[in-house]
């Protein structure tokens, strides 16, 4: 069943059409939620909530935007709401995407010429770093760099300007660079410490 037909049938409450829409989009929505929260149980809750909201509103969908964009917008909002609740803050999108404005955004630390990330980023440390991003940065980074959305689509999903999306992405990448460098340095320190205690134990 093509998506357009599934949408039409779902608008009249057809169970098979709902399931078809779920099957078409569940992987990307679940993936988005999982990358955003880094936790499978929460990602499952959020995926269910996003689809629930979608299906409650599907009768009002008029096709002004792509269905997937509409769904992702709902999913991102559900995730951001959850992250706001977790942090105990009622914050605006601007606030959650601009946490470092007092200090002029991400630090422009161009040092460490001898340390490069290339070849040392794996999924585990990338997810750990993404987990530490402010929610707004995280959303734009996951949508653009992980899921491959264009800035105009992200602007629509996030309800912001294209320029804002580009700016948040850049800040997210710069912050990730710092976090990944910190992780590498921390790992190197631990390895040196372990090697030191190991050689000390042999004496």
């Amino acid at each position, binding site marked *: 069943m093509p998506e357009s037909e599934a949408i039409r049938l779902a608008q009249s409450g057809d*169970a098979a059409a709902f399931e078809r829409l779920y099957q078409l989009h569940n*992987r990307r929505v679940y993936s988005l939620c999982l990358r955003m929260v880094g936790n499978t149980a929460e990602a*499952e809750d959020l995926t269910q909530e996003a689809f*629930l909201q979608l299906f409650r509103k599907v009768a009002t969908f008029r096709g002004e935007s792509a269905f997937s964009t509409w769904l992702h917008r709902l999913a991102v909002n559900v995730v951001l709401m959850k992250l706001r609740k977790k942090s105990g803050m009622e914050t605006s999108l601007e606030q959650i995407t601009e946490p470092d404005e007092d200090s002029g955004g991400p630090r422009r630390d161009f040092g460490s010429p001898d340390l*490069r990330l290339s070849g040392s980023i794996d999924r585990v440390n990338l997810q750990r770093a993404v987990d530490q991003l402010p929610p707004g940065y995280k959303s734009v980074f996951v949508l653009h760099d992980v899921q491959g959305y264009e800035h105009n689509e992200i602007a629509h999903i996030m309800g912001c300007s294209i320029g804002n999306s580009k700016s948040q992405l*850049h800040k997210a990448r710069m912050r990730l660079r710092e976090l990944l460098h910190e992780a590498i340095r921390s790992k190197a320190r631990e390895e040196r410490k372990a090697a030191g205690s190991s050689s000390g134990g042999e004496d």
Partner: protein
Amino acid sequence: MSTISCNEFSNQLESWMDGVRQPAAEAHVRSCASCQNVLSDLEAIHSSARSWEVDEVIEPPARIWASLRLQLEAEGLIHDPASLSHPSTAIPLAGNQSHGALEHQVGWLDRIFAGVARPALAGSYLVALVAVGVAMSGLGSQRGTDDRWTNFTQSTTVPLRSQLDNVEHAVFSFNAADPAVTASLHKNLAIVDNYIVLCEKSVNEEPGNEVARDYLYSAYQQKADLLAQMTENGDGR
């Protein structure tokens, strides 16, 4: 060619990554190891993120749709003629259930087994298990307290075990005439029962541990599968 400073380049970095590259910035990058490192890092982050999604296909668990469907049915948002006569349509969403609702669900289990014909017994029981499984996994993501979990475990699993015992007795009565079959059933069920005991112990020790609850549900499922198979075999004689 005139070049720019690192600070000036950092101001152009965002547009550089977006593909807009001024000749002066290009000249600076050619001669600056530090800025080359930054660009290398940003490109590494971008390519790692992209391959993350492409290489790792994430399949959401089937219970999301099961739970979602129950909620949609409960809210009257979907209509499926086939499900209207199905008892599962009356089950409220697990994640929002109170103890009263759980008791209601256990009562629903009782109603399923009351008066069902033997051929339908196994299939009905599996439907009931799916509902309880949804309840367990749904509540699992609600991050309840250990006390809540202890109460939940007792209110859900005790009647469930009771129902399983009833089905087990019924199965043995079907096969009582054949001592060899009865002995084999006892042996297989003892293995599954031991597994259930271990899983229940784990859940009691860590009521909030979702993995432990998943294993417990899986153990009940195994017992139900075994009983279903026995029932079908009994019917086939």
